[in-house]
């Protein structure tokens, strides 16, 4: 028992201190309450909530999800309750827990990003914002901000201007040069970078000749994208010095450890929550067992130990 107590899994994302490096990925864990019956939220490094916009959004017409080999496509279309309802109806629940609350935000223009950020900064119980500049499902905004270093930097700067909260910028993989975007947002003042969001894909029903998703295209997530995610996180890490959070197809502790070894300070668990509601707890438990097995007492001795 004494052995176990010495294990230190806490990590720092800039000023943000987490009890362990495992967070939930935005859009896969609702507002926390959806999984509170299955997961002790106190044990998570952080809860990253469903992306919020200034006004509530209804989302896309169904079908919105489709399983594909090793993953799934989704075109939910950023359905959310809006920032005000989040603060009054969802945040009080999360405040009861001893975990960090990271709020993913989305705007259709710079002004919306600023307004959402201002409202969240004034609310009690928000520990950081994660700026979605990458959601591929909405025609306006989304893709254009994250696909160009200039607009990505401008969004980052606008958000930074109006908040003292740590700002994490979440990158899209649907770009030619991910490192250039990462460098641009770092220069613009981002406190951390998270990646990757989903990879745009599609799927066709051969019997009807129609797309499986009403939106035609959707974001691919799940184990199929992990090697791509790992490669992109690695490319970004070679070009920036701010903390990087690895996301993409992490199903278990082994997957999470790959991201930590290449240098990610933390990871987010996404699609795995859908497959196993307790996936986050199993990742945390698995990392701990790995540390016990290898005699590593502090997780910082794992992070960035990659030998290329």
């Amino acid at each position, binding site marked *: 028992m004494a052995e176990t107590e010495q294990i230190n899994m806490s990590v720092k994302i800039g000023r943000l201190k987490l009890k362990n490096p495992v967070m939930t990925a935005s859009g896969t864990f609702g507002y926390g309450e959806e999984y509170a019956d299955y997961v002790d939220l106190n044990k998570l490094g952080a809860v990253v909530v469903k992306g919020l916009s200034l006004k509530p959004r209804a989302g896309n017409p169904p079908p919105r999800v489709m*399983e594909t080999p090793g993953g799934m496509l989704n075109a939910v279309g950023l*359905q959310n309750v809006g920032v005000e309802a989040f603060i009054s109806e969802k945040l009080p629940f999360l405040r009861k827990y001893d975990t960090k609350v990271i709020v993913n935000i989305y705007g259709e223009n710079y002004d919306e990003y600023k307004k959402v950020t201002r409202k969240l900064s004034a609310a009690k119980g928000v520990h950081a914002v994660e700026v979605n500049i990458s959601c591929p499902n909405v025609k306006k905004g989304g893709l254009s901000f994250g696909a160009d270093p200039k607009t990505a930097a401008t969004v980052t700067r606008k958000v930074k201007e109006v908040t003292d909260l740590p700002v994490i910028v979440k990158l899209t993989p649907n770009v030619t040069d991910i490192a250039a975007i990462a460098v641009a947002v770092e220069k613009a003042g981002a406190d951390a970078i998270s990646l990757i969001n989903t990879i745009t894909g599609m799927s066709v029903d051969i019997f009807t000749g129609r797309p499986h998703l009403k939106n035609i295209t959707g974001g691919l997530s799940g184990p199929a994208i992990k090697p791509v995610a790992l490669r992109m996180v690695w490319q970004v890490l070679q070009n920036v010095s701010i903390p990087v959070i690895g996301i993409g197809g992490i199903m278990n502790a082994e997957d999470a450890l790959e991201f930590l070894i290449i240098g990610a300070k933390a990871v987010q668990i996404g699609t795995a929550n859908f497959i196993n509601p307790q996936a986050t707890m199993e990742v945390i438990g698995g990392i701990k067992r790995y540390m016990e097995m290898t005699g590593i007492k502090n997780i910082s001795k794992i992070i960035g130990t990659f030998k290329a």
Partner: protein
Amino acid sequence: MKNVYIGEILKNEEIAQDCFLMRVALHVSFPDPAAGQFVMVRVSGIAEPLLARPFSVYSFERQNNSCALDILYRVLGRGTQVMAGLLNGTQVEILGPLGQGFEIKQNKKNIILVGGGMGVAPLTYLALHLNNYMCSSFSTMYFYLGAQNDEALIGVDELKKLSCTAITCTDDGSRGEKGLVTQILLKDLKKFSPEETMIYACGPKPMLKALAKILRKTKYSCQVSLEEKMACGVGACLGCAVPVKSRNSKPAYKRVCADGPVFDINEIVWK
């Protein structure tokens, strides 16, 4: 804390062409499903299918130290193809029971169940529940069950064990009355007073849409159980959206998994 249950397949039989009955043994702590609730089923330790699949509860029996859950499914895609090949003794992960089941109103004397194809599953479980616990509150129960043809008409034998009047029909007339189940119901509908009748329905979307059209200008109460592709089953992924009526006529969606799968028929936008 709720858990994912590990169940063991006791039976996985093809009871008709491409149609399977799976019985899963579960730990005694598995909660009693309400009629209309569903479970997410996933085969342990395999990569494909990746996501669990939702199935409504067809039957649930509790013995002294275990319980048995029955689901009825038709082989339609990769998930059900893999399920159909599973042998007795295989472990499956069961999440549930999930969702909001049928609401049972005490003041309805007549119960009408309208099922199409696999829609028979939650309605049979509901009928059993009404027979066992609610028989004093209603006087008549009619079960309208339709399918394309005799072969696709599943679960008729189970209906015979219930105290209800079963009316079967097929599109081609190969069994029971000839015609769509909604048309057969329409012929009989005036026998039931709207105030004293509750209709429960489950089946393919065109059937439910036709039913909604029949009932639109009437005072009949009707609850429908819906199906949609879903990833999580607990309300987080927002994949299983169903369009619902909104005050300002802007698009609005509810989640089949967490807000349903049972809805008032008038709440849904039937496109």
